[in-house]
């Protein structure tokens, strides 16, 4: 078991070092996130105020697009010069590769969220202080489910001419339950001031469990070199 953890740490370190070395993706994705928040802010008339709770949906759109681009990048790193084949020939099982990719994707999505969320709070006058802990929990669970599906399909859908397009086309509908559940929870908390709904949290948890398990198994079958 420790060997697997060591390998996961090694693979994640490699991904993050490559990302630090190239830097442009994270920068590009973060600016895109802020752009989405600004455009939707203007579109939804955030300047009139009183629409703080709408920021949750806007932040979601920013996270999703940023997420898809991150999945695309962390997988395209493996495609250059056939690096993935080097990995697959090494005594590393595919589940470990999936787990490492998932963690790398989550770390990158988190990095983007750390920049985009404040932008949402500022532009929408979104009162995050009302329930920051619940916000973080719900967003965390949602991102986990989203990244689970995104990582699986990023391995299947290579970065060819459709680039992020096909990946977004595939991942968005499949993760709609996460989006529906988390936005409903957010509305409940930030608009109606209720506490965290058990049922909705259950849906998020179920989604994460189902899709982490399904992606882990299928990744094994489909990651042909």
């Amino acid at each position, binding site marked *: 078991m420790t060997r697997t953890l060591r390998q996961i740490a090694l693979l994640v370190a490699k991904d993050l070092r490559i990302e630090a070395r190239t830097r442009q993706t994270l920068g590009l994705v973060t600016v895109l996130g802020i752009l989405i928040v600004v455009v939707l802010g203007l579109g939804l008339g955030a300047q009139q105020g009183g629409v703080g709770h709408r920021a949750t949906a806007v932040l979601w759109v920013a996270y999703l697009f940023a997420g898809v681009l991150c999945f695309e990048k962390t997988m395209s790193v*493996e*495609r250059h*010069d*056939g690096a*993935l*084949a080097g990995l*697959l020939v090494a005594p590393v099982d595919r589940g470990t590769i999936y787990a490492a990719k998932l963690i790398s994707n989550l770390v990158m999505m988190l990095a983007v969220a750390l920049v985009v969320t404040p932008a949402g709070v500022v532009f929408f006058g979104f009162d995050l202080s009302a329930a920051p802990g619940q916000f973080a929990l719900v967003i965390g669970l949602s991102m986990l489910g989203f990244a689970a*599906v995104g990582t*699986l*399909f990023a*391995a*299947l*859908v*290579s970065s*060819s*001419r*459709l680039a992020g397009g*096909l990946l977004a*086309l*595939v991942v968005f*509908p*499949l993760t*709609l*339950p*996460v989006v*529906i*559940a988390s936005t*409903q929870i957010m509305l409940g908390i930030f608009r109606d001031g209720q506490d965290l*709904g058990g*049922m*909705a949290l*259950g*849906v998020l948890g*179920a*989604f994460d469990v*189902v*899709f982490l398990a*399904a*992606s882990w198994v*299928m990744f094994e*079958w*489909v*990651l*042909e*070199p």
Partner: protein
Amino acid sequence: MNRRAVLQLAYWVVTAASFVGAALLVAFATPNERTMGVVQKIFYLHLPAAINTFLACGLVFIASAGYLWQRKTWWDDLAAASAKVAVLLCSIVLLTGMIWGRSAWGTWWTWSPRLTFSLVLWLLYVVYLMVRASIESEQRRAVVSAVYGIVAFLDVPLVYLSAKLLEDIHPSSITLDGSMQLALAAWFLPVTLAAGGLIAARYALNRAQRQRSGSAAPEPRGFPVRLVGDAI
């Protein structure tokens, strides 16, 4: 007309007859529902179409799992055929639901759990067809579609659950008396026969087109490892 064509013809004649029979039964021999009135009669088409949509989605799931397991192309053709029919049936569910809503509540669209569920289901499998259309290499398309087919089906209960989170402004659970249940059963038969027949026909067409193109996946020329999805 060889034996197979005769059988096919007989199948479709029976399906057509059961369509006509069910229509007559609902039009003349089924009473209107007290609270909802005549528009409730849409239900006799709406529910069978929904159930068959679910069966077709299940078939996509089974065929997708079959392809991943055996990598035989006929599984892939079956998945494609079932998905097309699933989208067709789901369109019926969605449209009849909207028409019903229009008549009963005056608006074409409400974010009620049932309508949202049908819409997301419809989106899931329309995207399946679009994914298939956007991948050229047969073997790559089959693998990506298979994984999508499996994940989409696992998604269905979750979509149902998350849709229930939406407030349902029009709770309308109606009880069906004897003759109404007869009408429901009467409509279940033709819709199921049609669904099965369409899937079979589409499947046969897929097989024929594959034989004619005969372009089995070429042996990957040489290493390097051309990665997953290179020809998309």
